[in-house]
């Protein structure tokens, strides 16, 4: 028996990887590019303690939903382990998993899609009881379902048992979905954006219900969301995900008070706050979450990071982004004058390595390209990209650029949190 029950993990995730393989397009195969895989969850480790609410926060494509589903065995892990009540979920057969699912349940984002429109609320909420053979006869089932409905606030239950989902409001439907999740007395509830589709005035009620249920039934939650504001209120600990990796994890209070990773800092600054004295922030990371099938080198966040420096993983595609951003700023005339001097830009996206030869088109010299890049640098000398460039040489028909050697960031402790960023050692 554990001496400190609070500290005992309910779920232990170690080096979890979930990869999806993708089929390359005809064009990809033609040029010999590998179809490859998407590392939706890329070597993630954490513990979910008993009675804890752990938030998995990330933007679309961060892998948060895949991670939640891998935890439940709904998606097969590629590698690593998920220990839950003494068993490794990733190694269980479908049959063994089914028995486990009584102990871990999921609530999805869209309550409209989570309920079968042709099933009454009573049948839908009681369905898990039937599947697991836990009730005999209709009366017993109706009694159990009525209890569950009362618990989630759909009261008097008799009013809801025979209704169809279309008779209910969004919030009422989400209550029914939660009733269906808790009717089996699970110990873990994975809630994937449970309030994102609901109106503001309803969100608080559903979160409040979830908090009450947690205390009443001694539940633990994995709360998956893109919304740092609800997560702040709801979670004991937070893990920030970016392109399949945890970039920062720690107690909520610490993360909100002093976010360490530049990505966490950006996420927090970007949330529109209902405070009219604030204006839209202007110093946000540019661009969007890159294609997960081809994550950037080194730290995946480096191309968008305002604080990136020499070792963060600079590569040739970053040069293309730099040129494109430059031309977007300067307008058509400069673009039309400069673009013809460069050869094929697509070759920039394809090439890898710490040195690159940027070919000049016939008639132009490496010196011409160098002059353009020097102008770009003079426009924005503080652009982090330039820290990544070790040297540029103008050749007769090409510009040679050498990048600084990248280093892979690792999750390291920094005060009360762990963070995966070279700024912290």
């Amino acid at each position, binding site marked *: 028996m554990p001496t400190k029950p609070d500290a005992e993990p309910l779920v232990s995730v170690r080096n979890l990887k979930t990869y999806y393989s993708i089929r390359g397009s005809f064009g990809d195969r033609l040029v010999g590019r590998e179809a490859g895989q998407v590392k939706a969850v890329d070597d993630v480790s954490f513990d979910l303690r008993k009675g804890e609410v752990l938030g998995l926060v990330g*933007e679309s494509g961060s892998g948060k939903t895949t991670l939640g589903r891998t935890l439940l065995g709904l998606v097969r892990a590629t590698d690593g382990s998920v220990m839950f009540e003494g068993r490794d979920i990733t190694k269980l057969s479908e049959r063994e998993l089914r028995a486990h699912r009584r102990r871990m349940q999921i609530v999805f984002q869209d309550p409209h899609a989570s309920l079968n429109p042709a099933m009454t609320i009573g049948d839908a909420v009681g369905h898990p009881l039937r599947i697991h053979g836990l009730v005999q006869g209709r009366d017993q089932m109706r009694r159990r379902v009525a209890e569950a409905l009362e618990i989630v*606030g*759909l*009261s*008097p239950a008799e*009013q*809801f048992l025979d209704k169809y989902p279309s008779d209910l*409001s*969004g*919030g*009422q439907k*989400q*209550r029914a979905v939660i009733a269906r999740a808790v009717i089996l007395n699970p110990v873990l509830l994975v809630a994937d954006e449970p309030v994102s589709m*609901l*109106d*503001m*005035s*309803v*969100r*608080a*009620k559903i*979160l*409040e219900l979830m908090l009450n249920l947690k205390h009443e039934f001694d539940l633990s939650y994995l709360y998956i969301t*893109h919304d*740092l*504001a609800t997560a702040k*209120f709801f979670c004991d600990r937070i893990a920030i995900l970016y392109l399949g990796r945890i970039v920062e994890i720690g107690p909520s209070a610490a993360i*909100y008070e002093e976010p360490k990773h530049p990505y966490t800092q*950006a*996420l*927090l*600054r*970007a*949330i*529109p*706050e*209902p*405070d*009219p*004295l*604030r*204006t*839209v*922030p*202007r110093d*946000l990371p540019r661009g*969007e*979450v890159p294609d997960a099938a081809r994550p950037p080198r080194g730290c995946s966040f480096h191309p968008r990071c305002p604080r990136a420096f020499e070792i963060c993983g600079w590569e040739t595609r970053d040069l293309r982004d730099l*040129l*494109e*951003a430059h*031309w*977007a*700023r300067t*307008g*058509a*005339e400069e*673009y039309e004058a400069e*673009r013809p001097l460069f050869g094929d*830009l697509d070759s920039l996206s394809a090439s890898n390595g710490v040195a690159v030869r940027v070919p000049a088109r016939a008639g132009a010299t490496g010196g011409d390209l160098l002059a353009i890049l020097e102008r770009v640098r003079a426009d924005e000398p503080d652009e982090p990209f330039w820290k990544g460039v070790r040297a540029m040489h103008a050749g007769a028909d090409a510009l040679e650029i050498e990048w600084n050697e990248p280093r892979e960031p690792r999750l390291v402790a920094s005060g009360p949190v762990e963070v995966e960023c070279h700024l912290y050692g």
Partner: protein
Amino acid sequence: MSDAPVLSVRDLRVHYGTVRGTVRAVDRVSFDIGAAEVLGLVGESGCGKSTLGRGVLGLLPEGAASDGQVLYGGRNLVGLSPRQLSGLRGPELGLIFQEPMTRLNPLLRIEDHFKETLEQHEPQLTEREIRQRSLETLGRMGIPPTRFRQYPHEFSGGMRQRIMIALALVLRPKLLVADEPTTSLDVIVEAQILAILADLKRDFGTALLLITHNLGIIAEACDRVAVMYAGKIVEEGPARDVFADPAHPYTRELLRSTISLETTELHSIPGAPPNLIDPPAGCHFHPRCPDVMRVCSWKQPIDVAPGPDRRVQCWLHGPEAEIPPGEAAGLEREEIAVADEA
């Protein structure tokens, strides 16, 4: 704004028929948008804000009826023929939707979208002028010229929304209506797009009607705010003043129930918004209002000014002459069951 408004809406009503009855989606709504002003229209789902946005542009579904006035450039847009309206849409009045992918033609290059738009509305432009103007507008939205010949599917969601905004702005409209333009975007991209929209007046001299359910967006991007509830604008004024000191109990409660980084305590509004077929008598908010008075349950409130440049429809602010004696007494509210809440 002291200048004449770009758009004046007066007593606009939009009704449409359903099998259950007539939905009064927009019910006698009036507001002005000043030149180069950002007006935020905020409300929960089903309050009629999207219908209002479309009604302003004459884009109503079949079977919808509207009356009242939408005054633009000395003309009343209500009652114009579809042909007259579509001539205005684009060069004068632009529209951006929530889901950009559904508005871009997947078979057309970005270049061709711009060409088609500009050729239709400004036939005097040369090829070169079309290209210059398109690239310049796209560039200001952060879309590089290298991608001009790509197809919509080659862009991310945020890029597509930038393209949609550029496509609306390339015609230099005086007014842009943006209906939940950032709802399907990630939070950092959302902030990028909001920065673009907040700068429209500076960069393009365009007025903006920004429709959203998110009070945070209103606070950060809008000069003025109109709060909509059950088909009516219940409060309107400078965003700063309304947020600092909301006059309508609905505005106040909505602000309190918004979960933000500052939230330390959960709060919600009891009950649910009414359907617009058979809304409650009197003030539509009265069954949920913590400050409800007797008069609220039977008499519709009228516009009063709780402060400079502001208006509110709530009997708490009078006018007292219109409240019969004794009717300002508090009304015992019926208990609202939890089940009715969400």
